[in-house]
């Protein structure tokens, strides 16, 4: 029976996405801990596990392609598979950012005070929270949580601006700060991108649940609905 076969393939995709989200969550959590504690061993672990995320990205893309080609999904099924493809891509980038974070953590391990004073850890916690919430919203079709994530993006953007200005001031005052400061500016840019990817995932959740495209606009589209006759 085709529908049963489709259901099985869809379950496999969901299972892969669950594994992928679990891996990305773990990578981001470890990267944040590595930065906070200056834990170089943890940095090494994060780097070594990135290939697993890349492999899942390829697997999920292939699963989505098969579902499109073999079953021609429509309506909610169609949106789920489209969302899965988009979220898959965002998750892989979040995985890359976890690696970038630990690379900067390795290069700034001797500058713990600078990291703490410049509020980078606060920014990272805010972005990390967005990512975990976005993943949770996707796994549970939680559109309220998704909207909360979208609203949080400004908080991280503001951190980014403040920290940039703060680091520039510190670099002006002390040449010793220039090199770690430059690494930390790159780091904050990465964290800001992580928040952006989380926002994208949250927008995908709104599309999945409400069939509304909310990216790049304030308001959701008022599209014509079919008329229910009974």
């Amino acid at each position: 029976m085709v529908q049963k076969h489709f259901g099985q393939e869809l379950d496999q995709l969901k299972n892969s996405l669950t594994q992928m989200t679990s891996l990305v969550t773990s990578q981001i959590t470890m990267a944040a801990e590595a930065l906070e504690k200056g834990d170089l061993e943890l940095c090494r672990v994060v780097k070594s596990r990135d290939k697993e995320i890349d492999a899942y990205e390829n697997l999920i893309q292939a699963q989505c392609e098969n579902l499109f080609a073999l079953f021609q999904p429509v309506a909610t099924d169609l949106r789920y598979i489209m969302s899965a493809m988009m979220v898959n891509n965002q998750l892989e980038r979040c995985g890359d950012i976890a690696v970038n974070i630990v690379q900067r953590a390795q290069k700034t391990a001797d500058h713990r005070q600078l990291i703490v004073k410049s509020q980078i850890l606060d920014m990272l916690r805010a972005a990390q929270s967005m990512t975990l919430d976005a993943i949770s919203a996707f796994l549970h079709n939680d559109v309220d949580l998704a909207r909360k994530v979208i609203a949080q993006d400004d908080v991280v953007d503001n951190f980014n601006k403040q920290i940039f200005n703060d680091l520039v001031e510190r670099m002006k005052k002390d040449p010793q700060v220039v090199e770690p400061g430059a690494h930390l500016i790159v780091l904050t840019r990465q964290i800001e991108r992580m928040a952006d990817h989380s926002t994208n995932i949250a927008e995908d959740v709104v599309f999945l649940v409400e069939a509304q495209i909310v990216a790049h606009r304030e308001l959701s589209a008022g599209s014509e609905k079919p008329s229910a006759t009974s």
Partner: protein
Amino acid sequence: MENNSEKIIVNNLDLYYGKKAALDNINLSILSNKVTALIGPSGCGKSTFLRCLNRMNDLIPGVLIKGTVLINGRDIYESSVDVVSLRKKVGMIFQKSNPFPKSIFENVAYAPRVNGINNKKELFEIVEKSLRKAALWEEVKDNLDKSGLSISGGQQQRLCIARSLAVEPDILLMDEPASALDPISTSKIEDLIFELKANYTIVIVTHNMQQAARVSDKTAFFYMGELIEVGDTKMMFTQPTNKRTEDYVSGRFG
């Protein structure tokens, strides 16, 4: 020629086969120069509904029809309506192609001839025009004397469409016109439907969800004799409002 005027307006249509209700209070407007797809599981009433649009059900013993079917503003079930004239204006294409056991030319020329056109030149013009409209002319123009039964299934179906077009209908009813055809022939029929809607109003019954999605502007979902939902095809296949519609178009039942 494209507009959004209502070509067919169906009001409170009930149809009974004996005591069994096959259609229950159908209300549906079909727009001019649009393709409207009727979908639903077997026995849902979609073909019965289609046949109501040119009074084909009149031929079935024990059928009772209530309600009105307005075509161009006139109720086709009024006693004064000439059913033969009605069926000239509302042509029908069936699931299985049914050319006459005559030449390709005579298949298309048959109805105009019955209607009194005997001038050879005029008949030829009608045949050529109809075959061109049915996207068959280039394939058969050198073999017009060949039997209509000798060409492929896909060509036979387009010949039947040409035969319908020869009497200059306003509306074409199609009951699963491509269900017995291979993908290439199906594609040609679908392309043809797309082209024909510029000049005709088309209502198509199909079990092929992807075909409904590809060819139609509006889709109406029937279930157990009721019209459950009707809307723009794009919306019906992406955001149907009724759960039964979603379950059906997703292949979860039917």
